[in-house]
């Protein structure tokens, strides 16, 4: 144990700040997809306006973190903790931004006839993506590098469903009988892209957790 008691406290606080931001991000992503599937415009609007809070929180934590590095000059594990926290911040904030994009898409496709198959795929894909986020964050909470390594295998499933969405969207758009289907199909393509990007960030977090624990950098998958 080092003598600098307040420094220890500051690091613990930082970890909690990260988890707080993570909780907001997780809920935002869940909500965005849920409101999309239920075609809930009010809910989608709520997600969009909630982003301000996430940005504000992320900014606050970033300031704190930079100050901590500058004044305490941590080394070894503590330094890694501070650096990974900064990276988590960026990833979590981006993820929330993609969730907001999904909420926006919900507003754009409202009222159009929806392709059931695309909805199903999107729902499935979002479940896998959320599982990835959960595993990455749990690995952080438990300090469990193994868990972080395992989580990354889910990325293949995301890619697989994403390909299916692409096929189905193209198929739906080729059908000449229903021209109104084109706009929602395009948005579903975009949404699958957003979810893929969210999964990428979840993978980043997983990699950072491994770096934090073991001190080694490794590209997963």
């Amino acid at each position: 144990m080092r003598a600098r008691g307040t420094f220890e406290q500051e690091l613990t606080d930082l970890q909690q700040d990260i988890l707080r931001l993570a909780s907001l991000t997780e809920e935002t992503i869940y909500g965005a997809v849920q409101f999309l599937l239920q075609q809930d415009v009010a809910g989608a609007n709520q997600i969009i306006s909630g982003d301000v809070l996430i940005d504000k929180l992320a900014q606050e934590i970033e300031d704190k973190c930079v100050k901590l590095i500058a004044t305490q000059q941590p080394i070894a594990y503590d330094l890694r903790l501070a650096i990974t926290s900064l990276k988590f911040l960026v990833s979590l904030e981006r993820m929330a931004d993609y969730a907001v994009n999904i909420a926006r898409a919900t507003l754009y496709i409202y009222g159009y006839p929806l392709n059931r198959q695309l909805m199903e795929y999107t729902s499935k894909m979002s479940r896998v993506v959320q599982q990835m986020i959960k595993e990455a964050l749990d690995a952080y909470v438990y300090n469990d590098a193994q868990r972080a390594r395992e989580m990354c295998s889910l990325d293949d499933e995301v890619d697989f469903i994403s390909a299916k969405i692409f096929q189905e969207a193209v198929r739906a758009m080729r059908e000449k009988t229903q021209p109104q289907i084109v706009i929602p199909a395009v948005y579903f393509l975009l949404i699958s892209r957003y979810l893929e990007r969210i999964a990428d960030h979840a993978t980043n977090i997983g990699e950072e957790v491994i770096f934090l624990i073991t001190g080694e950098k490794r590209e997963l998958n």
Partner: protein
Amino acid sequence: MIKNNIWRAIINYFFILLIFLAILQFYFFYYLNLGWALLTSFIFALGLGWILFKQVISPLKKMNMVTKAIGQGNLNQELPFYGQKEISQLAQNINDLVRQQKKVLAQITAEKNRIQTILNSMMEGVIALDKQGNILLLNSAVENFLGIAQEAYLGKNILSLIRNYDLERAVKRVLKSEKPITQELQLIYPEPSFYYLKATPLKNQEQEKEGIVILLRNITKEKRLDQMRTEFVANISHELRTPLTSISGFLETLRDGAIDDPAATHRILEIMSKETGRLAKLINDLLHLSKIEERRVVHRWQLVQLKEIINQVAAMFQPQAQQKSLSLTVEMPVELPCVSGDPDLLAQVLTNLVDNAIKYTPPDGHVLIRATTDKDNVQVEVKDTGIGIPPEDLPRVFERFYRVEKARARELGGIGVGLAIVKHIIKAHGGSIKAESIPHQGSAFKVTLPTEKIETEE
């Protein structure tokens, strides 16, 4: 320590021996030779030392060991009695102390176990946190809700246990204001579910804040029922309004002069009677369901020829099927045993199943009613090549007002009571019903009814 003392005792002994010798020299200088004097004194001292060791040092050594063990938490220690009065007293006191301590400990353990048992028997989740929001205790309900093991979380922050922004904020607020709060909470993991949360500040005897106690009640079921009820009201209003709007529209037309045109009047009356029929069916269905659910239906039990009923229902739906270019076929053995039951209710079962099959099968599909029989049962299966039911909805289609994908069902005019009625009727007949489906390929509903006479249960 003890060894050290012995050495000191030996040194002391030689020191005293020296003085003793000096005194001896002084008195018996001429009579005693030095060797003898040394020997007697040595033997004497040895005897003295032995007595000292037996009476004092050895018991003290033992006590030392025992009290040390007690200090380390091992209370299963007793000291024997010793000859020496004071030492025996001391041993006695130590024994009493240990016994007392043991009793108190047993009481505390029993109390703790009792509280733990009470906590674990609660349906509500209980979480106790300290002032920093770190977990002191949680009961098994929480473990169940979250699918975790308690040990992993003791001492960790609440955010590590439940990553939920609202919950953490509530905890902070209570810690700050020291006033209890209640609110609703939605958790995403491990299953999306709703909780009713009550957070109360925890105070010690001096009224200083110690932490916080959180009570969690799972209200997911209530929420879901509530939602279903809201949807039901919305649907039913929609269902009632559509025919009513049409009827009042046509009444208007009649009043505005159409009544003078017999051909138009005839057509309008036709439509109005159809719409009234739809209204009546809707209201009948609802009444029927509530009656069946409250077990107020008077059954006219008799031997029923399922064959007749199947043919009747098939004939009834033939026009509807043709309209949608569906083939509606019946397959059954020449001999179908009778079942005992209410013919109208059994006809209703078949009607609802075939109605669904036709409703949820796109044009150019097939609907098949097939009856088979074995020794004890008759099985009637209604099978279609329709849109099917996703596996996650399959277990729930028999719930009242439950419809797969609300928008689709509303378009087709369903309110979601058909299968609920079917299930209740089958249950009242001592039978069972099973649904199977592959999405986009079709569904099959299998009714099994006992052939032998059944007791009228109601």
